[in-house]
């Protein structure tokens, strides 16, 4: 890996995060504002990237779409880390029945392809962005719980943790002071490799019409909205897709770099 690539990825991600955060202030138009007199317009000084089939400003929708995608992935990350770390720590530290039950449950969740499981959960919970986020998080927590449990078990055998236990530290203390800091690096590697994957899942489920509702701006929804016009106005499909591609590439670059630096042993995990 060349040394400038991770820096480029960081720069790109910072830019995307900045644009997403500032979208309400820098987007030239309301992303949901339709103007049928201005439909399917080519780029102009007023609409820098042109307009879609309802006359909505494409640039504004792309910016708000970044907000939706990155926000969703951030929420998935928090949920997966919370569930995975807590359950993994519990299983590793308590052992016994708790460990058996939690790990069998994790096995059950890993028995189903992640996107199929997410589709099923959206079906069970109902459509909408919040449920898409919950569904994707629920279909991925098991990988993290397994990783954290394994790391916790190997840590428990280490002298400094045993010493803390002998000195009377509670399990909560051990989890907070010794386990969480030690597993953070490895979890970060796994998560950074998954972020791009989750962007693709969010976009895919939104493309299927399960995420953001109709007037909302999200990259997957924009592509699905533009379908009937993509022979005459291919930009409406090309640009949101390119935005997804760029974001996923940036996350993947960052993930590869982080893995090379923190954990060369963790091979490409393929899910």
């Amino acid at each position: 890996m060349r040394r400038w690539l991770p820096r480029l990825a960081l720069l790109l991600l910072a830019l995307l995060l900045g644009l997403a955060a500032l979208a309400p202030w820098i987007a030239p138009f309301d992303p949901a504002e339709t103007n049928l007199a201005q439909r399917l317009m080519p780029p102009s000084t007023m609409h820098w990237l042109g307009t879609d089939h309802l006359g909505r400003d494409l640039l504004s929708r792309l910016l708000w779409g970044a907000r939706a995608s990155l926000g969703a992935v951030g929420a998935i990350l928090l949920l997966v880390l919370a569930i995975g770390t807590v359950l993994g720590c519990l299983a590793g530290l308590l052992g016994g029945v708790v460990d058996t039950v939690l790990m069998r449950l994790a096995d059950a969740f890993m028995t189903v392809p992640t996107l199929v499981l997410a589709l099923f959960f959206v079906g069970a919970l109902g459509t909408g962005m919040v449920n898409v986020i919950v569904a994707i998080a629920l279909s991925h927590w098991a990988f993290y719980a397994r990783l954290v449990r394994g790391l916790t078990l190997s840590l428990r055998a280490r002298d400094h943790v045993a010493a803390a236990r002998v000195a009377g530290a509670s399990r909560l203390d051990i989890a907070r002071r010794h386990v969480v800091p030690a597993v953070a690096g490895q979890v970060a590697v796994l998560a950074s490799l998954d972020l791009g994957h989750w962007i693709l899942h969010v976009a895919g489920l939104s493309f299927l019409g399960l995420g953001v509702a109709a007037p909302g701006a999200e990259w997957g929804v924009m592509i699905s909205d533009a379908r009937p016009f993509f022979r005459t106005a291919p930009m409406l499909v090309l640009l949101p897709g390119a935005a997804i591609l760029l974001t996923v590439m940036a996350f993947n670059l960052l993930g590869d770099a982080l893995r090379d630096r923190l954990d060369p042993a963790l091979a490409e995990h393929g899910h």
Partner: protein
Amino acid sequence: MLAFALRRVLTLLPLLLLVSVVFFAMLRLGRGDPALDYLRLSQIPPTEAALALVRQQLGLDRSLPAQYLSWLADAVRLDFGTSWATQRPVLEDILQALPATLQLAGAAMALVLLLGLPLGLLAALYRDRWPDHLTRALAFLGVSLPNFWLGFLLVLLFSVQLGWLPAMGREGPASLILPAIATATVSLCVTLRLMRASVLGVLGERHLVFARARGLPERGVIARHVLPNALIPPLTTLGLHLGELLGGAMVVEMVFAWPGLGRYALLAIGNRDFPALQGFVLAMTAVFVLCNLLVDLAYAWLDPRIRLGAKAA
């Protein structure tokens, strides 16, 4: 070998049982009242009397464990209930849609194997020369591509511009090409990268020096000493990729109007048709688990250490 196969199947059964409990619980813990969904789909006005009747008919008035057990009793006899929307047996609908999905995922898997592995080998053998740079650049792009968007790009190029291949539908082998490429690309590129790394790892090993020293031609060294060892890491991830391909097919099917389980699942989700949804996820899980089982058995057959090691453990 037979004992190993039996043992693997026996460990799978409790896992599948647990999976079915999770599915059942998720459907019942979700929002909304299934009886209301049922009435809406049957176009019966939701009066109190109708609701009470439906609850009794669907068994919703019984406790959750009792409902699960009666569902399970039907399921082991391959009766997955009746779709609330179509009023047809779920199994029938699924068996109708499943072949198209399996064909798509299978074709994609063939692409992953027939292109990903050789290209990975090629990249490794031409390390740091142009074939390596080219395949790596393409693979890097490929792992980040949204499959449904790639589908549109392929249609734009090969159907609209060139007119070589059909843009949608499932008629003849030509209609399979574009959806299969769109489904396969991410897994193909991941496999390519893994294969390259794996070959480079084996190429650094010392027994190759001996093989060359005793005069084995380079071609023989690759075929007899590099490939068998280098293939193991990418092949162990095939099971996971199969999951990705099955999931990816669900989205790609929508781009190409491919009449598979993706459309069935979307209809079930839109209708909140619980028996159909349950049938869908069970069918996909069954395919996934079965294929992984076959992969495991193939390993055990190829590598005695696995089946004997499993017995010792």
